[in-house]
């Protein structure tokens, strides 16, 4: 069982991470990436979630994902967008959590799969809501973007975690 001090530290760190994700979500919405193709986002918050999965454990990381989806939906408008963000976040978290438990899988690869699945969840839900399978081509493109951005955020998260381990010694 965790000491009270550890619990408090965990709560404080969680709050910090959620705030970070919200800011990153806002910043990435300002960047004009690929106009005309909706939904292309850098997914910077995924890097934070990866960090949470490895450093804070899966249950806490899940809570952080839900908090991020709800809060950024409320803050940045788009309660309807929240549905899609949740679908993407859920699918991505499931895969990232499962893969993080498999030995030998590198953090960057977990992040890549997370990014890919995030977009699969979002476009997948869109196809269900609009009752059209026509978005497949679009999904393929977003999957590639998700893989790439997942790699970038994975590299960041990996660097941070490696440095933290050095600092703790």
């Amino acid at each position, binding site marked *: 069982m965790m000491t009270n001090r550890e619990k408090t530290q965990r709560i404080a760190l969680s709050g910090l991470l959620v705030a970070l994700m919200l800011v990153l979500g806002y910043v990435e919405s300002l960047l004009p990436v690929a106009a005309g193709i909706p939904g292309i986002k850098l997914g910077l918050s995924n890097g934070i979630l990866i960090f949470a999965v490895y450093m804070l454990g899966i249950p806490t990381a899940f809570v952080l994902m839900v908090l991020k989806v709800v809060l950024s939906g409320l803050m940045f408008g788009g309660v309807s967008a929240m549905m899609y963000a949740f679908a993407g976040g859920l699918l991505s978290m499931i895969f990232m959590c499962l893969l993080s438990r498999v030995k030998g*899988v590198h953090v960057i690869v977990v992040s890549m799969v997370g990014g890919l699945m995030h977009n699969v969840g979002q476009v997948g839900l869109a196809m269900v809501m*609009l009752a*059209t399978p026509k978005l497949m081509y679009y*999904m393929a493109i977003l999957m590639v973007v998700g893989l790439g951005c997942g790699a970038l955020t994975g590299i960041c998260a990996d660097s941070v975690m490696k440095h933290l381990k050095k600092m703790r010694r």
Partner: protein
Amino acid sequence: MRNKNLWIILAAVALIAAVFAAGMLMKPAPGTISNQQIVTITQSPDAPDAEPEAYLLVTVGGVTYQPLPLSGEGEFSLTQGESGMVNTVHVTPDSIWMADSTCDNQDCVEQGIVSLATMNDRVLGNMIICLPHQVTLELYTAEEMNALIASLEEAQ
């Protein structure tokens, strides 16, 4: 150890390729078209009675309306009851675009113009989608529309 990572990445790439192939191969048509007319466009005064080269197919909330022959230029609004969801569509004889929308992310407006020239080059193809309002606009050439109507009549 490295093998697992490689396998996972390869699996991801294979999945992407499969989805991509599905996207290229599938050109499904809407299942049913309701009998309702969404709106009528006044004929262009330059070429009355000309055969329309393109049609607009509008789907709102899962209901696909009668295809609109694009025989002139015009703008109309799709208002969904009292919800405040309003989409303004602009059409010309060979193109469509979302002129305005009350949705919060404005993706549909930014998706730009679908014209007969660009409909196969765009990422979203012949579609403009307003996700929050569940509105889909599709541009069909006259040939595609005739094929669509024929296949729907066969299915009945």
